[in-house]
C-alpha cells in the first residue's frame, strides 16, 4: 500500500516525472496500479463537483469491469483537468491520464 501512496505523492507533486519510470520502479501490473490509484482518488475526493465525483467513479467502473472506452476516458480526463473545482480533481485527471496512456500502449 505504501507503494501506491509514494506513487501518488510523486504524481501529484512532481508533474514532470516520467510515468514510465515510476511504473518500472514499482514493478506493478499497470492495470492493478490503475485500480489502486482510482480507488485512492475515489476515497479521497470530496464528491462536491461533478467531474471529480462522477468522472472518477466512471473510470473506476471501467477499470473494474476491464472495459475501457477510450473516447469516454478522454472526455472524462478533459473535464477533470479543465473543470474540476479544486487541484485534487485536476491532478487526478492528469495522473490517471498518463497512467492510462501507459496501459493502453
Amino acid at each position: 500500500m505504501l507503494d501506491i501512496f509514494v506513487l501518488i505523492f510523486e504524481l501529484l507533486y512532481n508533474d514532470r516525472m516520467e510515468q514510465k519510470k515510476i511504473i518500472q520502479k514499482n514493478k506493478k501490473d499497470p492495470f492493478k496500479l490503475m485500480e489502486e490509484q482510482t480507488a485512492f482518488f475515489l476515497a479521497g475526493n470530496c464528491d462536491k463537483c461533478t467531474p471529480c465525483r462522477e468522472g472518477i467513479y466512471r473510470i473506476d467502473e471501467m477499470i473494474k469491469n476491464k472495459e475501457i472506452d477510450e473516447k469516454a476516458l478522454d472526455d472524462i480526463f478533459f473535464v477533470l483537468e479543465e473543470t474540476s473545482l479544486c487541484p485534487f480533481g485536476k491532478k487526478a485527471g492528469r495522473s490517471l491520464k498518463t497512467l492510462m496512456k501507459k496501459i493502453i500502449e
Partner: protein
Amino acid sequence: MKIEIKINNKKIKTESGKTVLEVALENKIDIPALCYHPDLKIKGSCRLCLIQVKGKKNLTTSCSTKVVSGMEVLTETSEIERARKINLELLFSQHREECFDCVWDSNCELLRLAKKYNVEINRFKDRKTKYPVYRFGNALEFDSSKCIDCGNCVEVCHNQGVDFLETKERGHLFQVVPSKKKDKDCIYCGQCVTHCPAGAFEAVGEYEGIEESLNKKDKVVVFQFAPSIRTIIKEGQIVAGLKKLGVDKVFDTCVGADFTTTSEAEEVVERIKSGKNLPILTSCCPSWVKYVEQNYPEFIPNLSTTRSPQVILGGLIKTYWAEKEGIDPKKIFVVSIMPCVSKKFEIERPQLKISGMKAVDYVLTTREFQRLLKRHNIDLETLKPEKTDLGFGDPSGAGIIYGASGGVMESAFRTAYEKLTNEKLKDVEFKQVRGMKGVKEVEIKIKGEKKKIAVINGLGNAKKLIDDIKSGKRGGYTCIEVMACPGGCIGGGGQPLPTSEEIRSQRASSLYQRDKKEKIRKAHENPIVKKVYEKLAHEVLHTSYNKKGKGTVKKI
C-alpha cells in the same frame, strides 16, 4: 462602482461586486447553471456555468467569478460546449429520469440543456437506480435516485433551521439522506422541492393522487383555494377551471382567513388585557406549529389557538353551509388548493376534526392543480372567468393579503386596533410589516401604548428569534407572525417552480394590489363574519397543540 466588461465581445456596463453569471443573466445571456440558486450560497458544484476569461488558461465557473473592469469573457466556445456536454452526461448518469411525473413538468432545465448541447442522456449507466425513495410523514417524498448531489436541499434545510437533510458518506460516495438524529425532523415546508434543480423532491401523491379529489361520485365535491393561488392563476380562471373539471362548489379560502383574523384578533385583545401567554404566536403555518411542538414545547401556550383559514372554512362548509343547504356533512368532500406541502400534514391532525369528521379531506398543491387541469386538457385562457359560489360571499382585502409575509399580522391589527380602541382605523395599511425582509420588527402605538411586534418569514429566522427570547437577549413582543417559507405562503413549497426573491416579491405585490381594490378591507366587516361569527361553535374556530416526537420516515 460602475465598470465595463465584455461578454462575447459585447460591451456591458455593470457594477463591481457582481458575478459574471449575475451580469450575464441580467443581460439575457444564456449560461447554464444547475446548482446556482439566488436564495443560496455559491457552491460551484455542477460545473456547467463555465466561461473562458481572457488571460486565464483554464475554464472557470461564472457563478464564482466576480467581474472586474475591462474583463473579457466568452460564454460559448467549442471547448466550453464540450465540457458542458460531458458534465451534463455525467450528471444524467446519476439522475434517474421520470419526466412524466416531475415537479418541473415541462420546465426542466436538465432537459433543456440536454437538447441544447446534444447530450447523450444514457451515455453512462444510471448509478443510482437502486437508491431509495424516502417518505417524510404524509407530506413529502425524496427520491434519492434523482438527486444530482448539488447540495441545494441540504443548504436550504439548514437555512430553515431544520437540518433534517444531511450529507453522509456511504462507501466511497457521499449522498443526501434524512437525519437519524432524534432531535432533527422534517417540518414539511417543501423548500427542498422548490430549490432542487433535479425534481428529486415532491409532495406525497404528486401527481399520482390528483384524480382522487374528483373521483367522488357519491359526494358533493367542494373546493376552496388559498390566497396565494391567485398570484399564479386569476380567481375567475381558477373557478372556471374547477367548474370545467366538474367540481360542485367553489369557495375562497380568504373568507376562512377573515374568520381566522377575527378570532386571532380577539385572542390578541384578550391576552393583552390579561397579560397571559404573550407574545402570541401565529398558528396559520402548520410547519411552524410542528416546529414549535417539537423543538420549543415551552412556547405551545403562546401559539394562537385559532384554526388556519383552510381548516376554518372546511369546518364552516361541513357545519354552517351543510345545514343551510340541507346536505349531510358526511356526503361532503372538501378539497383545498394550497401553495403548501405542509397543509397535507395539517389536515390529518386529530385536533382539527369537526364532529368526528376531517374539516378538509384532501389537499392539492398549486402545482398539482395545474397538472390536474393539464391532464383534463383544460386551457384556462379559453374559459370565461366565473365567480365563486354563493354561500360565503366575497372575502375582505384583509383575507387576501394572508398569502404574503406580514399579511396575517396586518389583517389581525386592522381588527385588533378597532377592538382595543373602539375607534375606526382610517389608514388600514401597515406597510412596515410588508416586504421580503426575513425579520421585521415594528412598534405600533395603540391608545398611546407602544406594542412591539415581529414578522418573520423563513423558519431559520424564527429559530434565531425564539432562541434570543429564551436566552433573554430579546423580548417585549406582543405578537409574532411566523411563516416557514421565504416571503410567506406565496413562496410556499407547493407553488410552481422556479422561485426567487424577485418572483416572490411580484406575487406579494399582486395580493396588495387586490387588497387595495376591495371595498371591505377589514376582516370583521365582512358580512358573512358579521352574520355567523358569534354563533359559531368553539370547535370550528379553535384547536389545541401538544408536544410532538419525531415523525415517520419510510423507505419505499
